[in-house]
C-alpha cells in the first residue's frame, strides 16, 4: 500500500529539518561533556571501580576536570600519563582511583611522543571496535536476518540472571529482539554502575557486565534456533555516549537513542543532551548499532490525533541528527506508536494513516513501532484485543521493529506467560496478514490518504515555525509532548563545557573519518 504524498512537500520537510538541526549542530560542535570524555576513557579500555565504588572513568574525568584540564580533552592527559609512567590506560586509571597521582600534575612529556601514544591507543581501540562490529555483521549474515516486523520483547526482572532465563524462553517462542529494560532511575545517574547486578526496580541496570552476560546467552540461543537474535539497551539519560561505547564493546545491536527524549521526559539539560546524542550516534553509526528514536512518548502525554504531526516533525529532526553523525538510514529505527483512544470512531484508520506515513517518509529506515500503553486498563482481555489491532497495523504497513504490547501493560512488569501470549498473538497476525499490505490500496482522497496528507502538511507548518524560532526555543514553547523545558535548566548542565583551543578527541575524529569515508 502506498500514500499519494506531495513529494515536493516531503523534500521541503526534510530541508527544513536539515536547516533546524544545522543551527543546533553549531552549538554541539563547540562543546563536549563529562559523559563524552568518559566515553573516550571507556573506549581506551578503562573499566572497573575505585575503593569507594566510583567507576574509574568517572574518577579519571573528575580528576582532570577538578583541576581545570578537561578543556583540552581527556585523551591527552591519559596518553601523557601512559608515557610518563610507562603504564597502560587501565593502570593509569587505577592509580588515579587510588589517588596515587593526578593526571594534571604529571610533567608534560615530549609532545611528539605523547601524540604517538594517542595515535597508538586510538588505533588499537578502533581496531578492536571494528573487529567486534565485523563479527556481529558476519554472524547476522550467517544465521540470517529474521523477517520483518521483528518481534521485540522486553525483559525487566531487575536480576540479569533471571532476565537471561526469560529472554531465552522468549527467543525459543519466536522473539527476534530482546531489550533489557533499565532500572527506572538509571537515566538520571551520571555514571554507569559496575558489574553484574541482581537488584533493580522496574528493570535491570545497564552495566557492561550485564551486557556481556545477555549477549552470550542470546548468541547461544541464536545458534540453537538458527536465526540471529538482536540485543537492545537504552542510550538515553545522562550517560548516552558512554552507554553507546559499552554497547559497541559488547556487541549490542540496538539502542534506544533520541535526540530530545532526555530533555523532554527526564528534564536533562538541552545542551547536554544535544552534545551527548551526537557522540552517541557517531558510535552507533560506526558500530552498526540501530538506534530507536522515542517519538512514541509524545503521544503518551499529548493527543495522538491532534498532535500526530509533532511525531512526524520529531522523526525528521531525529533523522537529520542521525545523518549528521554519519548514520546510514538502515540503522535508523524511527519511532512512532499506536496510542489512539480505543473509543475513537475510525481509530484504526487513523493508526493506519499515521503508521503508513512513517513508513512512506522513511523508506530506507527501519521504523520502530510501539504498542498501546496509554489506554491499556486492567481489562487484560480488551488489552489483548487492542494489541491484536496494533499487530495488524504493523504488518500491513510494513513496520520493521515491532515492540510487542503486553496485556498486563501498566499493571506490572511482564509475567512469563504475558510475553508468551504476546508472541503468539503477533505470530498469528503476522502470518495471517502477511501479504495484506501488498494487496490493498487505499482509496484516492479517502480517509487514510487525507489524514496522512494532513499530518504531513501540519508537520511542514510546524517545521517552518521551528526553523523561524530555533529548535531550543521551540522546546521552551512546549511543542513536543506538551512539555516545556528551558534552555539553561535541567540535570547535567554542569557537565557541559566549551572545548578549549587545544581540545582533542581522537576517538571521535577517527570514527568520523571512517564513517564519512565509507571505509566500513
Amino acid at each position, binding site marked *: 500500500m502506498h500514500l499519494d504524498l506531495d513529494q515536493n512537500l516531503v523534500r521541503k520537510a526534510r530541508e527544513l529539518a536539515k536547516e533546524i538541526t544545522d543551527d543546533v549542530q553549531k552549538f554541539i560542535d563547540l562543546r563536549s561533556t563529562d559523559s563524552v570524555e568518559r566515553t573516550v576513557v571507556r573506549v581506551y579500555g578503562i573499566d572497573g571501580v575505585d575503593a569507594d565504588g566510583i567507576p574509574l572513568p568517572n574518577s579519571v574525568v573528575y580528576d582532570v576536570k577538578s583541576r581545570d584540564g578537561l578543556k583540552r580533552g581527556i585523551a591527552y592527559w591519559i596518553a601523557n600519563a601512559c608515557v610518563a609512567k610507562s603504564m597502560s590506560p587501565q593502570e593509569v586509571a587505577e592509580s588515579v582511583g587510588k589517588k596515587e597521582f593526578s593526571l594534571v600534575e604529571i610533567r608534560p612529556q615530549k609532545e611528539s611522543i605523547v601524540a604517538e601514544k594517542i595515535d597508538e591507543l586510538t588505533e588499537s581501540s578502533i581496531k578492536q571496535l571494528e573487529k567486534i562490529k565485523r563479527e556481529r555483521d558476519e554472524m547476522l549474515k550467517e544465521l540470517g536476518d529474521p523477517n520483518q516486523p521483528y518481534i521485540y520483547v522486553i525483559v525487566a526482572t531487575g536480576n540479569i540472571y533471571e532476565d537471561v532465563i526469560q529472554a531465552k524462553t522468549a527467543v525459543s517462542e519466536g522473539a527476534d529482539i530482546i531489550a533489557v529494560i533499565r532500572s*527506572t532511575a538509571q537515566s538520571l545517574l551520571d555514571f554507569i554502575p559496575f558489574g553484574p547486578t541482581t537488584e533493580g526496580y522496574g528493570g535491570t541496570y545497564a552495566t557492561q557486565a550485564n551486557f556481556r552476560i545477555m549477549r552470550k546467552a542470546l548468541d547461544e540461543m541464536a545458534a540453537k534456533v538458527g536465526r540471529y537474535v538482536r540485543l537492545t539497551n537504552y542510550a538515553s539519560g545522562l550517560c548516552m555516549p558512554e552507554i553507546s561505547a559499552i554497547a559497541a564493546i559488547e556487541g549490542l545491536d540496538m539502542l534506544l537513542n533520541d535526540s530530545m527524549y532526555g530533555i523532554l521526559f527526564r528534564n536533562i539539560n538541552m545542551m547536554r543532551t544535544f552534545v551527548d546524542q551526537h557522540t552517541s550516534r557517531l558510535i552507533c553509526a560506526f558500530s552498526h548499532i540501530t538506534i530507536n528514536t522515542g517519538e512514541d512518548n509524545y503521544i503518551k502525554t499529548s493527543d495522538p490525533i491532534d498532535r500526530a504531526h509533532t511525531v512526524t516533525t520529531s522523526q525528521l529532526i531525529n533523522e537529520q541528527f542521525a545523518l549528521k553523525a554519519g548514520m546510514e538510514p538502515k540503522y535508523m529505527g524511527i519511532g512512532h506508536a499506536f496510542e489512539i483512544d480505543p473509543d475513537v470512531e475510525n481509530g484504526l484508520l487513523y493508526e493506519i494513516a499515521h503508521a503508513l506515513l512513517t513508513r512512506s517518509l522513511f523508506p530506507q529506515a527501519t521504523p520502530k513501532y510501539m504498542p498501546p*500503553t496509554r489506554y491499556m486498563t*486492567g481489562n487484560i482481555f480488551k488489552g489483548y484485543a487492542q494489541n491484536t489491532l496494533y499487530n495488524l497495523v504493523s504488518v500491513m504497513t510494513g513496520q520493521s521493529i515491532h515492540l510487542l504490547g503486553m496485556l498486563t501493560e501498566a*499493571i506490572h512488569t511482564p509475567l512469563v*506467560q504475558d510475553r*508468551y501470549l504476546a508472541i503468539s498473538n503477533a505470530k498469528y497476525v503476522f502470518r495471517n496478514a502477511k501479504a495484506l499490505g501488498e494487496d490493498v490500496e487505499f482509496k484516492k482522497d479517502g480517509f487514510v490518504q487525507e489524514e496522512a496528507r494532513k499530518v504531513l502538511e501540519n508537520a511542514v507548518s510546524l517545521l517552518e515555525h521551528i526553523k523561524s524560532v530555533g529548535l531550543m526555543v521551540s522546546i521552551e514553547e512546549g511543542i513536543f509532548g506538551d512539555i516545556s523545558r528551558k534552555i539553561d535548566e535541567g540535570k547535567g548542565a554542569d557537565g557541559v563545557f566549551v572545548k578549549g583551543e587545544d581540545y582533542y578527541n581522537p576517538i571521535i575524529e577517527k570514527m568520523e573519518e571512517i564513517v564519512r569515508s565509507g571505509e566500513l
Partner: protein
Amino acid sequence: MIPNLDLRSIKPYGDQANDGMIQLSFTLPVPAGAKAREAAKTLIALMGFSDIQMVLSEDIGGDFTFFVVYAKTNKYVDYTSIKTLEVEIPKIVIEEINDKISKYLKRQVVIIGATIGSDAHTIGLDSILNMKGYHGDSGLERYKAFKVYNLGSQIPPLELVKKSREYKADVILVSQIVTQREIHIKQLTELVDILDAEKIRDKILLIVGGPRITHELAVELGYDAGFGAGTMPSDVAAYIADRILKKSS
C-alpha cells in the same frame, strides 16, 4: 441486585447462580506434559477448588508450562458482613468548586503531584492533573480553584517534601503505577515518614492514586485518601475541594 440471592453466602457466578466458577491462568516452571498437568491440578485442588477443567496446558518454551483452568470453589462470603473503606466523593462539579473555593478560601488551593521513587510512568498523574484530563473529564489544571505543580516522574520523596514547602502546598498527590516486589509500599511509606519527621503531615492533604491502590491501603499507609483504577479527575477535584473547605471552616 439479582433477585433471589442469599447475600449471606455469595459465590462466583459463571453460568448460573452459586456455581462458584472461576477462571485461572498461571505458569509452572516445569516442562509441559502429563506430569505438569497433574502438578497443576493438584495445586488447584490444594487451593480448595473442585470440578477442575484444564482447558489449556501449553509449552511456552524454556521448560515453562502455561495453564488455563476453570474450576469451582466451594467457598462463599457473607456479603452483608463486608465493610469497606471508600473515599467519600461529594457531588460537586467544576463551577461549584471554583465558586466555593474563591468565596470561602479566598485563594487557590496549591496542589503538587509527582510519581515518586523509581516509577517513571506519568500516565495516571497526567490524566488527573493535565488540563486535558481523561475521557472528556477535565484535569485539575483546568480548575481555577487549583494551582497545580506537576513535578513529573521519579521524584525522590525528600525532594517532593522540599517542593511542597517551597510552593506552600495544601495537597500532595502521588501516583504509583508500575511496581515490582511491593516497592511502591516502601516508597509511599517513606514519604509519610518524612512528612511526619518534618512535622507537616497534618498540614497537608495527602493523596495517592494508581491501579493497585485502594483507599484502605492508602489509609493504612497513613494517607488521607487512595484512588484506584477508574478514578476520574473530577472525583479527585471534588474530594480535594470538600476536604479543604471543611478544614478551613
